[in-house]
């Protein structure tokens, strides 16, 4: 199943080794542990720089986006078999 989303989430992030590592996020009253950060990429949209984290646990893939303009996190994509 593959869904495009655009919803605000809460994220617990670790800053270590010069990296930004989201560890958990809360979405629709559920907390998800992030097992792996597979890819991080970024993009400029006008004045805003957005960082996209492609993450997964052993069941789901999620794409999380961090907006530097207002320091918010959003979930943008979900995939599971």
């Amino acid at each position, binding site marked *: 199943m593959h869904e495009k989303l655009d919803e605000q989430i809460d994220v617990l992030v670790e800053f270590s080794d010069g990296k930004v590592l989201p560890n958990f996020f809360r979405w629709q009253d559920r907390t998800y542990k992030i097992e792996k950060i597979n890819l991080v990429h970024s993009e400029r949209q006008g004045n*805003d720089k957005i960082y996209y984290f492609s993450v*997964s646990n052993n069941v789901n893939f999620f794409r999380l986006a961090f907006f530097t303009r207002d320091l918010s996190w959003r979930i943008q994509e979900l995939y599971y078999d």
Partner: protein
Amino acid sequence: MNSYFASVEQQANPFLRGRSVGVCAYDSPNGIILASSREAKEKGIKTGCKIINAKFIDPDIFIIENEPAKYRTVTEKFFNILRDYTNQVEPYSIDESFMELTGWVKDFTAAEKIATEIRTRIKKEIGEWLECSIGISWTKFLAKFAGDIAPKKSTLIIRNQNELDAFLKDRDLKDAWGINKKMELRLNSLGIFNLSDLKNYDYLKIKKQLGKYGYYLWCHVNGQEISQVSEKETLPKSIGHSYCIPKRTTNKKYLSMILLKLCEKTGRRLRSLGLEAHRINLNLAFVDTGGINKSFKTAEAMFTSEEIFHEAEKILNELNLYFLIRTVAVSVSTLSPLSKQMTLFQDKFSQQNLSLALDKINDKYGEYTVIRGQMWGSKDLAQDRIGFRKLI
């Protein structure tokens, strides 16, 4: 990099690994696969395959719309790895690069060690699913040739003329960088049917028959260096954009709106390089086969998007369109640095300055923050894409 766009998508989403993935511009039945994963290629789904056909071949294929920002980020990361080994790195495309190692390593064995280290670092620092093929030799052409014929995920070295002869033996002419179907036919007319034939041909004869370009090809396959690896960006020969339109049509008003957007994108890139252009080219491809291609030198240099559009639209208006159009492409060439020469047309400078000011606004607040009225409604047309053999 091997199966680049698809591999990046599989790196991002591990549930796509091991299955067919097709990266496209638009996910629609008549959309075209831009890049397919290794698994899809093994089933015969290659670049250019229609999505509807790909799904027929493999109903389980996962189709994903391409995301240029993702690939550009990964490309920048792997170019940064390469820059740790030499200060002469020449990007060739979004997924290929040349590195000059002369003076940094003492022999091919040391170069091979670097190749292995690069491959390991790409996996460790960027993504474990990403693979590359590496070619090493004593000229730029031979290194590319080696990289192109190397098996996936491996390094191929051509150390000397004996090894070169072995690799060129019975090798198809089109396996060589710079030889397309048209050049192949010209070489065939000289009795050259494979790369060994080309290597052994009389260089004076080939220079006489095919000019400088033929001579360069001869030099390449004979292991003579023609061009050095250069980290400096050279002026492009042309700048342009194309768009496979969603609505097949002969409607000139619709085509004009698309043309305007393509001219705006072309103009943006032209201005960002501080260049002006003196030649315009318009290409319209028909739905079935064939198309129209018109090109001419313009009376005045083009710099603003309006100037480019004015010339391109002139061509479009003169055409009689009897067949449905599927692709519109515009490009400008004969480029030179922006001239500050005075003209009789006083408002030219103010138009140039206006274009530059609009570019600054769009750079700061986002593309198409300020647009011309004629472009209203075109936001979803001709979106950001990475062109073939392009970096951006």
